C-alpha cells in the first residue's frame, strides 16, 4: 500500500453557479512529483488554491498524512508544512527581497522592539545555501528584479517554512535554461528518500511534465479525467485527453464543407501588438464563420481587442472593405455595423447591477434617437428591449430584473441580444458559450447558423476545440502569438491534425 501524503475526496468548488472543481478524487503518494495537466479554465489553479488554503472547498474533504486537512488560510497551510509558489501571486514590488521572503513572519526576527534585518538576511542566505538555489541578488527592491529572479525568490520563500508538500504553479516558464536545471536538480533532491517531500506541479510545458513528473493528472472542465504514472501515457494520448471532448448531440453544423460568399468584409493585414500578436493576416468573407483557436495563452484572446481597437501600440491594417474604411478604433467598428463581444462578459460586457432593459439599451440608444436634439423615447427603447428579450428567449421576470440575478446562460443571452438585435454585418465573438449550460449552448449555435445564412460574417474565438471545429468554415490556428495555420472545413478538420498544429 503506497504511502499517501495527500488525498482529496469528492472535492468541489463552486463559484455561484459555476462549477470550477467538480467531484475531485485524488491520491498523491509520498515522494511523487504529480503534474496537473489541463487547459485554462480546467480547474487546476482552483485545486491548487484549495490545497494551499487560499480558497475553501464548497464540499468534500482533504486528508494530509491521513488526518483531515482544511487549512483556514495560507499561513495555516504553512503550519502543516504545505508551501506554494503560485502564478498569480508574486512578490511585493516596493519591498526588498529579504523582507519579501519573510513577509508575515517578520515577528520571528525581533531583537528588542525592532526587526533585525541582518538576522533575516542570514536566514535567507542559509535557505539558499541549504537547497542549492541560484543566489539571486538580495538588495534593491523586488519590483526591479527580473521575473526569473523573482520566481527563484518565491521558491526560497516557500522553502523557508520547511515544507514537506510543495506546490509549484507555472514556475518554469519564467526560468532560463540554467535555472531550469537548478530547479530540476532541486525537485529531485526534494522528493528523494532522505528529504521525503512531495511536489504538485502545474505547467503548460507537456514535455517538461513528461520528463520531470512521476505521475500526471489530467483535468478538463473542472473534473479529473484520469490519473496515472507518467510511464503509462504517450504524449499524443495526453494531449487528446486534455483538449478533446465528447461531442454529443448534433448542435454544431451538419455540413462538412466550407461555404461562404466571395465578398470580403474585413481585410486584416500584419496585425501586430507587442507581446500579444505577431503579424496576423486574414480575410473575412460575407456569411463566413472564421474560427480562431489555440492554447489559451497563445494569443487568441488578444485578437478581439486588437481588431476592436482597445490594444495599445497596435500596428497593421484593418479595413472594412465594402466602404474601404480603415478601422482605427472602436468607433469605426461600431459605425461600420460591426460588434465585438469580449470573453469576460461580467467585466467587459454587462452592467451587473443594472436591469436587463438597461443593459440591452446601451449599444442601441444611438440608433433610436429622433430629431436634431437626439431625443430618446423610453417607449422606443422599451420596445426594442422587449423585442430582443423575446427574440432571444431570455428567461426572466421582466425587463426590470437585475442582470446579476440571472443564470450564466441568460446573462449571455442578454449580452448577445443587445448586439444581435441590430442589423450587423460582422461580429467578433470570444468564447460565446463559456459558462453556459447545454440548452443555451445549442441555442447560441442555432443563432450563429441563422446569422450565417443571412450573410453576417462571424469571427468565433474559442478555446474549445470541438466548438471551433463544429462551427467554423475555416480555422485560424494560433500558436505562441503567431498564425500557425489556416485550415479548411472541407479538408482539414480532423482533431488530431488540428491539435498538432496548435501544440
Amino acid at each position, binding site marked *: 500500500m503506497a504511502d499517501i501524503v495527500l488525498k482529496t475526496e469528492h472535492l468541489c468548488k463552486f463559484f*455561484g*453557479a459555476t462549477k470550477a472543481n467538480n467531484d475531485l478524487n485524488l491520491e498523491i503518494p509520498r515522494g511523487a512529483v504529480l503534474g496537473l495537466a489541463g487547459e485554462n479554465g480546467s480547474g487546476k489553479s482552483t485545486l491548487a488554491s484549495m490545497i494551499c488554503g487560499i480558497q475553501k472547498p464548497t464540499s468534500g474533504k482533504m486528508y494530509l498524512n491521513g488526518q483531515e486537512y482544511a487549512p483556514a488560510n495560507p499561513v495555516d497551510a504553512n503550519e502543516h508544512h504545505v508551501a506554494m509558489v503560485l502564478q498569480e501571486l508574486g512578490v511585493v514590488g516596493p519591498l526588498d527581497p529579504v523582507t519579501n521572503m519573510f513577509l508575515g513572519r517578520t515577528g520571528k526576527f525581533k531583537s528588542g522592539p525592532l526587526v533585525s534585518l541582518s538576522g533575516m538576511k542570514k536566514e535567507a542566505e542559509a535557505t539558499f545555501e541549504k537547497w542549492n538555489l541560484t543566489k539571486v541578488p538580495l538588495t534593491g527592491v523586488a519590483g526591479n528584479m527580473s521575473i526569473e529572479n523573482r520566481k527563484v525568490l518565491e521558491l526560497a520563500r516557500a522553502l523557508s517554512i520547511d515544507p514537506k508538500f510543495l506546490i509549484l504553479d507555472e514556475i518554469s516558464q519564467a526560468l532560463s535554461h540554467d535555472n531550469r536545471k537548478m530547479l530540476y536538480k532541486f525537485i529531485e533532491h526534494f522528493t528523494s528518500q532522505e528529504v521525503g517531500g512531495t511536489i504538485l506541479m502545474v505547467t503548460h510545458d507537456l514535455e517538461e511534465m513528461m520528463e520531470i513528473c512521476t505521475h500526471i493528472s489530467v483535468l478538463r472542465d473542472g473534473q479529473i479525467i484520469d490519473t496515472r504514472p507518467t510511464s503509462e501515457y504517450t504524449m499524443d494520448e495526453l494531449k487528446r485527453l486534455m483538449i478533446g471532448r465528447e461531442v454529443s448531440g448534433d448542435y454544431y453544423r451538419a455540413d462538412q464543407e466550407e461555404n461562404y460568399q466571395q465578398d470580403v468584409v474585413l481585410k486584416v493585414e500584419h496585425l501586430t501588438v507587442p507581446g500579444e500578436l505577431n503579424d496576423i493576416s486574414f480575410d473575412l468573407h460575407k456569411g463566413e464563420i472564421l474560427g480562431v483557436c489555440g492554447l489559451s495563452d497563445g494569443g487568441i484572446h488578444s485578437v478581439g481587442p486588437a481588431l*476592436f481597437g*482597445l490594444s495599445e501600440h497596435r500596428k497593421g491594417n484593418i479595413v472594412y472593405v465594402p466602404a474601404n474604411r480603415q478601422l482605427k*478604433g*472602436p*468607433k469605426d*467598428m*461600431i459605425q461600420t455595423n460591426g460588434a*465585438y463581444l*469580449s470573453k469576460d462578459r461580467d*467585466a*467587459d*460586457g*454587462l*452592467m*451587473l*447591477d*443594472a*436591469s436587463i432593459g*438597461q443593459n440591452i*439599451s*446601451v*449599444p442601441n*440608444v*444611438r440608433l433610436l*434617437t429622433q430629431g436634431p*436634439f*437626439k*431625443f*430618446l*423615447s*423610453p417607449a422606443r427603447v422599451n420596445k426594442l428591449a422587449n423585442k430582443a428579450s423575446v427574440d432571444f428567449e431570455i*428567461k*426572466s*421576470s421582466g425587463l426590470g*430584473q*437585475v442582470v*446579476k*440575478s*440571472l*443564470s*450564466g*446562460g*441568460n446573462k449571455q443571452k442578454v449580452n448577445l441580444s443587445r448586439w444581435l438585435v441590430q442589423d450587423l454585418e460582422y461580429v467578433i465573438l470570444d468564447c460565446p458559450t463559456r459558462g453556459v*449550460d*447545454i*440548452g443555451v449552448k445549442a441555442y447560441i449555435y442555432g443563432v450563429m447558423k441563422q446569422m450565417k445564412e443571412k450573410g453576417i460574417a462571424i469571427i468565433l474565438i474559442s478555446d474549445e476545440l470541438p466548438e471551433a471545429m463544429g462551427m467554423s468554415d475555416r480555422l485560424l490556428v494560433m500558436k505562441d502569438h503567431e498564425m500557425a495555420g489556416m485550415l479548411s472545413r472541407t479538408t482539414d478538420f480532423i482533431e488530431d491534425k488540428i491539435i498538432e498544429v496548435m501544440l
Partner: protein
Amino acid sequence: MKTKKNFPWLTVIPFLILAFMLIIFGIIDGFDKILSVSNLESMFNQGFAIIVAGFGMVFATTMGGTDITHGALLGLAGGFACVAGGASAWLVFPAALIIGIASGALLGTLNAKFRANTFMMSLAIMIAFKALNNLFFAASPAVPPASLSFINNTVFKIIVLIVLFLLVLFVYNYTPYGVYLKGIGENEVAMRHVGINVAKIKIIAFIISGGLCAFAAVFNAVRIGAVDNKVGVSFEMNVMMAMFIGGIPVNGGMKSQLYKIIIGAFTIIILTNGLTLAGADSGLTQLIKGIVLLASVAFTLFLNRKISSSHEQAAVNQKKLDDGTAQAA
C-alpha cells in the same frame, strides 16, 4: 419564472426621511412656523442654489466621480460675474459660466486623460479657488449690478428652476448621453467595449457640474448682495449631503435620478431651517448634519449590499432550476 417582488425600499426611504423631518420639526417648532409663507419662501431661496448646483454635481457623481469645488466656485464665479457686471450687465452670466466651464474642463481632463483621482484633484482646485477668492474679494467684496436685482424674485426663480429642471432632465433621461453617463458609473470598461468615447462624456459631465454651479453663483450673489471670501463656505457639503440623503448612490450608475437631489435638498433645508428655528447653534446644526450624512450613506450602502446578495442567490436558484428542467427533459 418568477422572482420574489422586492419592496422598493431604496426609492421610498428618501421620501420617508423628508416626511420624518417635516413632522419632527413641525412638532418642535410648530407647524404654523415651518409652513408659514415667509418661512417657505426663505427655505426656497436657500434651497435654490443647492438644487441648481446639485443638478450639476449629479452629473459628476453619476459617472462615479466627485466634485467638491462647488463652494469655492460659488465665490469665484459669482465674484467675477459681479466684476464683469461693472462693465455691462449682459456680461454677468457669461463671465460666471466661463469660470465654471473652465474649472469643470480642467477637472474632467485631469481625470479622463490623466487618470487622476477626482476627489484629490477637485480638492486641490477648491483650495486654489478659495485662495483666489481671498486674493480678490476679501478686502473689497464684489457687488452685482443693480439692474440684475430682478432675478431675486421668488416667482422668477421658481420659473427658472422648472425650466432648468426640464432641460437637465431631458439631457439626463432622454438622450443617449444620459444613458452613457450612467453606464460609465455602472461599468466603465463595458462602456469602452461599446465604442463610447468615455473621455468626452466625463469631461462634459464636469463641465456641466461647474457650469450649473456658476449659474447658481450669480443668483446667490444677487440674493446676498455682495460676494466676499466667505461666500460658499460648506456649500459643497450641503450639495453633497443633499445628493446622498436623497438616495443617489455613492458610486453613481443607473440608480441615479434627478428628482432625488430635489428631495435631498429639501430635506437638508428643512433640517437646517428647523434646527435654526428651534434655536440650535450653528455648531449643533453641523453636528447633526454630519451624523445624518454618515447614517444615510451607511444605511443605503447596507441596503444595497443586502439586495445585491439576494440577486446573487437568485442566480444560483435559477441555475438549479435550469439544471433541474434540463435533467427532467
